[in-house]
């Protein structure tokens, strides 16, 4: 029963992802862009965990663990970003 | 059916990468485009592998794994070169020949 529903939940989350991308594309400030990258990270982690369950590949949980550990690296790298002109 | 879909994806990403390489002036954009092309080729290489007894063929996986590591190290070297070029020439774009040099 779960295996039948899982693909559609994955599709739903991916549509979520695409919607978040619109904010990244349109977001006025860089903070918004990074916020959508953060959303992208969290949703990817959820997706990977669900794919791990769906395809019975337990290693994908370790992949999700790696993603969650390094999600904050991007914001740290971004934090030091001095103001820069938008070309 | 899914393999054909991912071949189409690899082809599209490769084409976009070439397009990016051609239209980008900024060196970092060219680098991003090249990385896109690399990912497309890795995806293609893996799609060619024939599963053996249910398990995916290990040879293409090893090749692509090696490729991913080399891609990131060459990208890092290219970035270092770009930063040095920027320090010396004050521009992160290659010298151009068209007259309208902005």
């Amino acid at each position, binding site marked *: 029963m779960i295996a039948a529903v899982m693909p559609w939940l994955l599709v739903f989350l991916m549509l979520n992802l695409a919607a978040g991308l619109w904010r990244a594309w349109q977001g006025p400030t860089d903070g918004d862009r990074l916020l959508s990258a953060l959303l992208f990270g969290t949703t990817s982690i959820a997706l990977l965990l669900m794919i791990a369950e769906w395809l019975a590949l337990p290693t994908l949980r370790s992949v999700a663990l790696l993603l969650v550990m390094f999600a904050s690296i991007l914001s740290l790298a971004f934090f030091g970003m001095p103001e820069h002109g938008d070309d | 059916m899914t393999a054909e879909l*991912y071949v189409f994806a690899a082809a599209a990403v490769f084409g976009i990468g070439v397009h990016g390489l051609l239209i980008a002036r900024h060196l970092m954009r060219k680098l991003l485009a090249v990385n896109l092309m690399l990912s497309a080729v890795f995806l293609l290489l893996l799609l060619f592998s024939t599963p053996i007894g249910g398990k995916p063929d290990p040879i293409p996986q090893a090749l692509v794994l090696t490729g991913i590591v080399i891609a990131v190290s060459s990208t890092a070297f290219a970035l270092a070169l770009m930063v040095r070029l920027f320090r010396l020439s004050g521009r992160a774009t290659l010298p151009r020949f068209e007259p309208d040099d902005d």
Partner: protein
Amino acid sequence: MIGTLAVDLLLVSILIGLAWQVVRGRVLFRAIVFFVAFGLIMAMIWGRLGVPDLALAEAAIGAGLTGALMLGAFRRLVEIDARQAVSGGLRPSPRLSLLLSLLAGLLVAVLGLAGLELRGGSGEAGRAALDSLHLTGLGNPVSAVLLLFRGLDTVFEMLVLLGAFLGARHVAERDRRSGAAIASHRLPMVGALQMTVVPLALVVALHLLRAGANDPGGAFQAGAVLAAGGVLLTLTGRVVPQAQAGLLTRFSLIFGTLMLAGSGIVPLIYGGVLMAPPGKTAIYAIEAAMMVSIGVTLSLLFSASAGLRAVRS
């Protein structure tokens, strides 16, 4: 079945959408953020295609390293000259470039579809590797291929990694004015994050190393995880780039290559076969050495410095 197709269709369309945004993004910073997202989707696609080894490597390198590398370089450009750093937008795309990229895409599509037809082929190399897997004492065929059957490739790969580092270090400016340390570790949140993630990265790296023999994982993924921990330390300023490398750093750079090459050549002296390291313990030792080398090399590549010195806070 339809559900699977829907998942694949969405994965592919997001991937292509991201690639397009990376290339057409007007703002360079936005292109970098989209590129990191592209890496995440690639990791998901590797998972979907059932190759967890590659998903691990893509996640560790894509999420941990590439984004930080690009942003680090971008920050150095902005520090030197903010206005000029992002100048040189997109060349008006003449029809020629569109035509060329379409042709390139078409070529890859044709090659791909042709390749798919050949898939039914024998795949001897893969079958040979899988059949003689039991001789190696390793369970994970990818690790066996990387270390034993095609060990020579791995030696050259380690040399390429070393070459990239030497090149980057030589080219990088000596002045450490633009150190990568920004969010100093004294910030309340960042200190806590670092205390949890860096030790965990070490544990996960060791786990991936040990598991690499039988399950997905191995020296490359473990090294990439170590490097991501190194990037985190550099970003938070706990570790400061040095112009001069200490002896330990220099040795750890070549440690992996030495062990791998040595283990391949030494048996020759005793009449063995090239690249046939003895037992499983030797394989673990080599993988550990390679993990250290890859981790140190990639971390130093991020800070584009000769060495790193810990800061006593």
